[in-house]
């Protein structure tokens, strides 16, 4: 009975040592990976389509971005967009976005040349919006908002340093309250704009096409 107990204890000890070794190896591997993959800095340009806004119209924007890679499977993307949206011919809105996202790669070997890398993303954004009505006498209104966004995308690496990416993300804004509605005067439709009290929640789906080029390393691999 004592022997069995000793064997069990020994098994536990061996298991514990193996566990420690495994943890140590994993830790060492992570450090090696971090050193190898962190610090890559990329610059890029982007075009964005914005749909499902309160305007119920499709907007188009252009902008720029840069990426700083933190680890083998984690990258960050910092962007600025200028989006213009026609509101059913009755008005229009302009959005300026500035924000950042963290990209979580789903592939074991992300950014491999000639292969597609899938990723999930989440982040924050700040937004300035101005809405205009083409109807004379209706004043424009503006709002500031902050947003959270989440989505998914792909990188397609044409070369080791150049990738084309397509991503789709839902952006949820919380900010000052601008109310737009399509009203009628007889048979004539117009866009009414009012600055409402309190805060408002507004979301839209952004689909973005980007081209990025890796400029160099901020740290790690040279």
């Amino acid at each position, binding site marked *: 009975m004592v022997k069995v107990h000793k064997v069990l204890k020994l098994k536990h000890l061996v298991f514990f040592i193996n566990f420690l070794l495994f943890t140590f190896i994993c830790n060492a591997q992570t450090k090696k990976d971090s050193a190898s993959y962190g610090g890559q800095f990329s610059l890029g340009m982007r075009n964005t389509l914005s749909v499902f806004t309160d305007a119920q119209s499709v907007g188009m924007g*252009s902008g720029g971005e840069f990426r700083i890679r933190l680890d083998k499977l984690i990258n960050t993307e910092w962007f600025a967009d200028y989006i*213009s949206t026609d509101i059913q011919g009755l008005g229009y809105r302009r959005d300026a976005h500035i924000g950042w996202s963290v990209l979580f790669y789903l592939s074991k070997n992300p950014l491999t040349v000639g292969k597609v890398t899938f990723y999930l993303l989440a982040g924050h954004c700040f937004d300035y919006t101005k809405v205009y009505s083409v109807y004379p006498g209706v004043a424009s209104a503006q709002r500031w908002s902050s947003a959270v966004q989440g989505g998914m995308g792909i990188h397609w690496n044409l070369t080791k340093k*150049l990738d084309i990416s397509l991503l789709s993300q839902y952006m949820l804004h919380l900010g000052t309250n601008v109310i737009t509605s399509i009203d009628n005067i007889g048979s004539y439709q117009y866009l009414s704009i009012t600055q409402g009290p309190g805060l408002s929640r507004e979301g839209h789906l952004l689909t973005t096409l980007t081209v990025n080029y890796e400029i160099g390393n901020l740290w790690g691999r040279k």
Partner: protein
Amino acid sequence: MGKKVSISFMFFMLCGYFAGAQDSTIVHKGLLRTAGTFAFGTMPENNITNAYLTGNIEYYAEKKISVRGDVYYFLNSLKQNNPLLNKNDALYFGAFYHIPTHSGFDPLIGLQPGISYTQMFYNSIEVSPNPVLDVATICPLFSTVVGFNFFGEKWFHIQINVRYTVGEHLTAADETNISELSFNFGLGFNLNVLGKKK
């Protein structure tokens, strides 16, 4: 007809001259090139043709990859009874993929987001019987480019590009689709920035 043949002949003579002097190692990492060109663009939605003075500067970060910025300065529209555009200057910036060849012929395809500074005339019976000048505004643009550079001499090259731009001009007075198919042709200068060929 004879004029067209003469121009085509001159163009092929020029290409032949450059081809004779071609250096297959001109296109390489570290090459910086710039070109000044004329561009003509047609806006199918508005049925007008526009003329631009353009310039671009491009750096080959790799033999096959370059980054390039373009400036378009709007000169005027051709043959129009009612003027539509007063300003349509544009800036583009993006990346290009160059299909490798073993000569100075450098086919390329690229994506260039951009912005335009656009001002239009619009008709408003309430304001004036003549077209009225609207406010100028900035419009986001998406564009794709295909074309080629033809490097002949050490310092010079010919550039021909076709660009399709998607954009919309939005103001309180007017909404106009400014999508455009444009063609540009010109002479460029190139410089080896890295000082060695790779």
